[in-house]
């Protein structure tokens, strides 16, 4: 297999520089053994997570009253979903306890986020590896069964890792939403321009691998040439680090190859402005960022370039200002700790909750506007929106705010579930099953118990 690939590279490289050969799609399909991904795309489940740090004002996040099937979102933080006509596309999960609470320890911010998608508590807040998160498990499964060009995409509205005036909080776990199969934390990137390029460059080239991409492939081959020898020589711990680099080389290679094999007929590049937001500094205006992300997601889903996105509004224990809605004097985490002291802080904190909801509703609306054979892009798509921490002021891991959107598996939407004290990993278990993942275990402390889905 590898040998053939090499031959093809050399051929491409040489011919493109020399004879200026133009390779057509059928030849590439033959060589890549590819399938027409788009035709099948809608049968594969898609997953979006929108994570809110520092908790929410939970008492005003959910409707203050109502029943499982009869509830009113007006006045609470979820109102934008009703305004966008999405009430029947979502279900609310009130009262669940973060899985991190069940036997975990360490700073509660770090516990909140690192168990949100893993369903597994951390034992201390200095860990560097953890168990695989649900988004990654799904993306891995797709790559092994019906691969997409891009494995998965991790984004952040505010990627800032550092809250520099408190060195103890200078912790990579603040942004630790996704963990891959090796347990490594995946970085969340804010730069939408480079994400756009990663997703769409090459996807509209009629199946021709560009001269530059062909050269990149041969470079990647050359760099990887001694992989096995180098890995064999390395000790165990070093090997993990080298493997991450070699995996990165392979990921880039795979993405270039799949881009060269892109489907052009039904796939349009999203239009709009994709800001090259810094991947490490604070971003105080996540509104435009999240709206541009919505366009990226819907286009990527439409083209079946990737099926898994995570979006971090901001890292835990940090948080940004929200200049786009006029909240600039204090950052999110500071507000979260003043909600009982000041009515204006409380109002602003709630305002931010509502703002986050509007951004998620916008993502869902973008998807709902794209018709597919199954209905819209919202079909076969699961949207998980919420916070790992409950009341951000008390650092509680109880009563966390959770919403599941989209239509997938056997989920029946339009429900208001109240599940006091139950481990939120039960909801992850439900998502796991309804997204079509094999096996009946996920995360920790779970024997397969699921949360209600109807």
């Amino acid at each position: 297999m590898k040998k053939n690939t090499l031959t093809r590279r050399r051929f491409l490289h040489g011919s493109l520089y020399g004879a200026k050969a133009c390779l057509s799609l059928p030849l590439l399909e033959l060589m890549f053994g590819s399938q027409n991904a788009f035709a099948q795309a809608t049968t594969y489940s898609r997953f979006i997570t929108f994570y809110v740090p520092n908790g929410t004002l939970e008492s005003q996040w959910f409707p203050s009253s109502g029943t499982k099937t009869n509830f009113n979102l007006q006045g609470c933080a979820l109102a934008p979903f009703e305004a966008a006509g999405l009430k029947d596309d979502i279900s609310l999960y009130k009262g669940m306890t973060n899985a991190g609470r069940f036997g975990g320890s360490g700073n509660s911010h770090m516990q909140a986020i690192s168990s949100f998608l893993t369903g597994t508590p951390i034992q201390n807040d200095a860990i560097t590896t953890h168990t695989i998160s649900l988004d990654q498990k799904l993306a891995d499964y797709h790559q092994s069964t019906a691969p997409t060009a891009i494995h998965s995409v991790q984004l952040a509205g505010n990627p800032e890792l550092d809250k520099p005036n408190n060195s103890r909080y200078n912790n990579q776990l603040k942004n630790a939403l996704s963990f891959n199969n090796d347990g490594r934390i995946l970085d969340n990137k804010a730069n939408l321009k480079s994400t756009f390029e990663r997703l769409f460059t090459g996807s509209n080239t009629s199946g021709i691998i560009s001269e530059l991409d062909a050269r990149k492939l041969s470079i990647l081959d050359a760099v990887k040439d001694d992989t096995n020898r180098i890995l064999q020589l390395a000790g165990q711990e070093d090997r993990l680090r080298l493997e991450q680099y070699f995996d990165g080389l392979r990921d880039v290679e795979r993405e270039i190859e799949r881009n060269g094999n892109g489907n052009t007929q039904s796939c349009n590049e999203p239009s709009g402005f994709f800001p090259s937001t810094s991947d490490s500094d604070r971003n105080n205006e996540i509104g435009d960022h999240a709206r541009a992300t919505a366009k990226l997601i819907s286009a990527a889903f439409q083209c079946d370039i990737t099926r898994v996105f995570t979006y971090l509004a901001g890292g835990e224990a940090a948080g940004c200002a929200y200049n786009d809605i006029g909240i600039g004097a204090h950052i999110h985490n500071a507000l979260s700790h003043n909600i009982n002291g000041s009515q204006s802080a409380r109002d602003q904190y709630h305002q931010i909750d509502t703002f986050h909801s509007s951004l998620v509703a916008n993502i869902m609306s973008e998807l709902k506007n794209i018709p597919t054979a199954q209905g819209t892009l919202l079909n076969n798509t699961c949207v998980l929106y919420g916070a790992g921490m409950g009341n951000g002021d008390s650092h509680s891991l109880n009563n966390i705010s959770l919403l599941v959107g989209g239509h997938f598996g056997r989920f029946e939407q339009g429900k208001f579930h109240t599940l006091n004290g139950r481990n939120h990993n039960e909801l992850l278990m439900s998502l796991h099953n309804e997204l079509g993942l094999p096996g009946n275990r996920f995360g920790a402390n779970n024997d397969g118990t699921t949360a209600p889905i109807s």
Partner: protein
Amino acid sequence: MRKVVIISLLVSILSACGESNSPIDVNNDNTNSSDNGVVTPSPFTPPPFTPTPSDPYPIEPGATPEPQNTPNPITQPNPGSTPQPIATPSGPTTPAPTNPLPPTHDLVLGEAWYISNELKCSACHSNDGRSNDYPDLVGEDFLANYDFDSLMLKVLFMSEKYGTISCDGKEPGTCGYEVAAYIWVKLNNQTLENNADDGKNGNDDSLASSCRIQKNSGMRRLTKTEMKHAIEDTFGLSADAYDELPKERNLGGFESIGAVQSSDVNFVIPLLDTSINTASRIVNNSLFTHNCTDNQLSSCISETLRPFAQKLSGLGPNEVEVLLERVSRFALTTAQSQAPEPTPQRPSGDQCNTTGECKTLFGNDADDCVNSPSNQSFCSCGGERCDVLNPGIFNPIVNTNIDHINAGFEDGLVALIMSPEFLYLKARQSDQARVLNSHEIAKTLSLTLWLSVPDDILLDAANKGLLSTQEQIAAHIDRMMSDEKFSRFKEHFFNQWLGFSRVSSYDVNDDALNILNWDAIANDMTQESLRFMNYLLENNLHVNEILTADYSFLNARLAQHYGISGISHNEFEKVTLPDDSNRQGLITQGAILTRAANGDHASVVIRGETLLSGLMCDPPASPDATIQNEIDELANAQLSEYEKMLARDQKPNCAACHSTMDPVGWAFTGFDAAARPLIDDANGIINNGTIDPSGIYKDNFYNGPLDMINLLNEQNNLEMCLSEKFMIYTLGRPVSYLSNAEDNCIIDEVITNLRATLDPDDNQIKMKDLIKAVLIHDVNRLQGDKLQ
């Protein structure tokens, strides 16, 4: 440097077969703590404790401990004696026994101390080491975080911090040792290894350290800054494209921590583009030259790339061959695949049609055009073939176009600057402990001091094996510290340690504080502290001057902001701080004070925590989730900072840490969130309208920032802390003097050895000397086998 107060508690077992089964009553009535913490002798004086292998109680390592089937081993009948921990006046500590006999320990003694009123271990951690409110001393997580030596260190520090007395010693028979052994053996079912043969590190005679160096200061990737400088220094051009790579992930501000670096797809995508861009610039730069033609192309490529491969990888002449072969082969493949077809040779068989043409080609020697009508014609010169006599005329036209060769070099260079051999440092070939070779030492030195790869001199020394003794390494460090490239170190090390460049991102609400040009002032603060630390380092001044300097570096704008009058220069200049400024050394500089900014006021807690963690290297423990309710209660309370501080003092769980943290922060409440003098407290946020930065810190009265700075200085932690932070920076792993036995030993050794070289009249340790002393210590030359 802080030392555990040594109180030698010589202890005896009164009887090997005691009559009493009840735990010994070791209460305060037997001892009298004086103000300085020294314990006076108890009324009765038992014989000294002399453990021998024949004692029935000391347990041999390897002996199977009793299985712990009951949750509380303390409740088991204790058949042992009733040990009496007795305090006697302190004496010199006995050196560690170096005999090959296994270490002994006394579980009964350890237990008695564990539950005693002096040490109070069990008061928080409970008798069986399991507690809801405090860290467990048993179980997997505990064992993952501690080895025996570090546990012993922890016992010593915790006893000093929270016990009514300080617990002495790391030797058998002392309470630090016995309590740790009790926790280790009895509560955790662990055995004590015989460490008698661990005193020697490796088989290298040049290794001098008496510390057991076991940690793996493992492989790490070069940071983007290091890559950039390495390219610049190797190829002589600017490599700004590397600035576009993702910002390094860091731990505690340090970017060189191998364990948290990210090299995933999000790193590789821009790295690939940057490398392609950079290789193109290198080959098209006039400094890159080669004489390669299609003849002997393979060896020419290889020889051209060799010096670059050696320099960037830092590998020795033999080791570099594998890398060189790989990148050269790739360069050759590219060059050959892009080579234009050779210009067709003029057909040698169809040279002429007339004799005149031959004379034109070969001169008058030509006298005939043989076979002129056919396509086999050739010129004849006196009966011989003219082309044989004049080689070159009809030789193939030499292809002078070298674009394809340059394209080959571009690809080869991309492969080189993306190779793991360049990007990674100190890859281990197995998990075995080993001594680094000269080339690895050279690369470590240059990355640390220059943020770049070795220069020719360093590489030459490595090739000759001249980097194997401390003296040889020290000579290179001196040379490297006087090189211009050392300025990179100053900027990056101090920035990563103390976060100077991040002032503008602190939570200073400039509107509420009425600061007009905060961005400019924030930048000034960064400049002030960088210049200050650089000045100390460049001039090799005393480390303690970080705290005690009566000067700083100010321009007019910053001086005005600080309320210091009489400064009119717009450039930064060294300024003696006026007495009434209440400023001294680094702590009262804006880059440090504004770290505690919390909108419109400064947080006492953050200020205290920042100074203890950052400059004392004594970070308070993270608040455990179990005391979260108490934290919340206070966070929500409508109280001034002072009232909250009093409230914390009333809650034992809070006071455990805040009794040291809060006074350190409180002493600086005379400075506001933006480091300006704070005259009054109009909103009552600090203390109901008044500013009174006085109080008690560790039994000492202080009034104002200068008192506190001097108290902190007396703790003498700064040399330790600079060593610790520098070790993190150069080793690329977490280092903790106060909680890890190995780190503790190394730093003690560095400082002790360095101090021994000093003039007794001037025995203060200096900045450059300390950095050099750490760098030549064996810890930088030895990779342990213990995973981090």
